[in-house]
């Protein structure tokens, strides 16, 4: 058979390419553009090379917020992933309670982010908030506007409340998809609950967990709204995470160049860490 070789089919990709370009590439390139130039307004730009990058990479404030960000994201992942998985394992898999549980569990995901922030802001108020007052009543001093520990506790708790459901729902979907035959075989083979978890449920949930970790990592690494409403980055700058720092630099200081360089470094860190998580969690597959 005679094959005609031509590449005209590539033209069919053009619309998608244009869409992606306007969605992602053009804005990104604008930022890249800012990051290597200097401007004093009036739309006049001067070449500045890697100056802004060097400045950002040597900026102590940036280092501090990056460290805070890593600790926060680490804590959030360490709590939300096991907790979501554990609750998913306990949820009923059939019967009338399934839909009730699912709706209850999905509720936090439906609350707008700034509302989440205000809710927790009010709830944690030491004098009138349920949480704040309750903790103080226990004899533990709690004031999230003054003590960094209290602020961190509230921020982490808020994120756990807001996002554990996502992990839970992903895990639940993964669990429900495991065919009954696996559990039956395990019973016949004399496997206990731990062996069932270790050899059936966990391996079958691997892909779902990878997705959960990636989503939670990316989201928590970019957290802004809830924290800005809850603590505004304080007390001091103890809860100033990367995105808060970025916004302060870009809008507050109107330093377009350094802020653009910051954005790119921020983006590259997320890209790199996502890749790292993905390869680590998927490395078994390759063997």
């Amino acid at each position: 058979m005679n094959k005609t070789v031509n590449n005209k089919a590539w033209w069919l990709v053009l619309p998608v390419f244009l869409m992606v370009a306007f969605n992602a590439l053009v804005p990104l390139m604008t930022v890249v553009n800012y990051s290597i130039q200097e401007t004093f307004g009036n739309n006049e730009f001067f070449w500045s090379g890697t100056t802004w990058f060097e400045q950002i990479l040597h900026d102590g404030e940036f280092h501090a917020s990056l460290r805070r960000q890593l600790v926060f994201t680490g804590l959030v992942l360490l709590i939300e992933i096991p907790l979501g998985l554990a609750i998913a394992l306990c949820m009923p898999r059939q019967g009338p309670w399934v839909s009730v549980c699912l709706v209850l569990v999905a509720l936090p995901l439906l609350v707008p982010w700034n509302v989440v922030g205000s809710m927790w802001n009010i709830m944690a108020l030491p004098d009138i908030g349920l949480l704040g007052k309750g903790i103080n009543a226990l004899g533990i001093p709690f004031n999230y506007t003054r003590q960094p520990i209290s602020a961190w506790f509230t921020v982490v708790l808020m994120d756990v409340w807001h996002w554990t459901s996502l992990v839970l729902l992903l895990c639940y979907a993964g669990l429900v998809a495991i065919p009954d035959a696996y559990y039956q075989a395990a019973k016949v083979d004399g496997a206990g609950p731990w062996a069932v978890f270790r050899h059936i449920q966990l391996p079958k949930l691997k892909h779902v967990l990878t997705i959960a970790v990636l989503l939670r990592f990316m989201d928590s690494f970019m957290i802004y709204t809830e924290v800005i409403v809850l603590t505004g980055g304080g007390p001091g700058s103890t809860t100033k995470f990367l995105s808060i720092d970025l916004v302060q630099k870009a809008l507050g200081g109107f330093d377009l160049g350094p802020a653009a360089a910051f954005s790119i470094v921020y983006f590259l860190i997320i890209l790199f860490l996502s890749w790292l998580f993905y390869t680590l969690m998927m490395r078994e597959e390759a063997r």
Partner: protein
Amino acid sequence: MAEIRLENLRHSYSANPQTDEDYALKRLTITWQDGGAYALLGPSGCGKTTLLNLISGLLTPTAGKILFDGRDVSRSSPEARNIAQVFQFPVIYDTMTVFDNLAFPLRNRGVPEAEIASRVGEVAGMLELTKTLHKRASGLTADGKQKISLGRGLVRPDVNVIMFDEPLTVIDPHLKWQLRSKLKELHLRTRRTMIYVTHDQTEALTFADQVVVMNLGEVVQAGTPVELFERPQHTFVGHFIGSPGMNVLPCEVRGGKAVFGGTPVDAANIGAANSRGRTELGVRPEFVSIASSGIPAEVVRVSDAGRYRIVETRSHGHTVKLLLKEGGEAPRGSTFLSFDPAHTQVYEDGWMAGAHR
């Protein structure tokens, strides 16, 4: 090793069953002898898997008892019953190697590693898995995975019964034949009770000493392949076993004869018939022959089936099939049929007249 007895066993998947229709397993009393090779044969949805899951303890019966050597285990866990079961679709533990998969049932029971190695080695040898023993199980083909499932069923030497639920459906035809003979060979060697579920009659008849035929949640007949062939207790068994199946023709019982379309016919069990209900005559194509007088019939079609030919005739508005050995003239046009009286049975409401139910 144990004799397994099921007494008035019933099972329904609905919480409060009302009628017989609600039962996936209507009522079953049967004894599986220790060391027997049984085939459980029946059409899709007749309750075969339900029965196996009841024996293994994955399901708890709605009513009735399960006795292992006289001990009531109706409510014990699968582990306590010490049984092995191979499921219809391969179940493997993805993260483990083939070796660890096969060793899993033994490890869970705390068998010493040295013994595990020898048991696994033996089973792997039998199933030709030795070369892949240290590969990850998830990388194997469907055939390989089902072999692992089979292997996990065979690896424990002391089980009361091994149950196979259509284990070879996903396996290649040539391998299927080979694995089936291996199972048979294993049974002869170890004399462990085996129950083999299938809806393929050749598979059942070649594997088992005893075949249990089920239909609509009931056992219709249990017997040796020869019994099922020569004396089907129910027209369903006559249809289901044999190819082509038994001819079932409406008849009347009059004066010690079965009358089919006006022609009196002798039947082996005519003495037991009391012409209650719907009466039918059952005769296998193997026991019908062309004669010079008898039942008038019209030859419709002759088809070649290898070593014999299938002749399809019409008689009194009903199709009657018969088998002819190779060679000789193919009959044509109008002719007469004769039924072998020793292998012609009268059925009342589907059941063989005189059969104890």
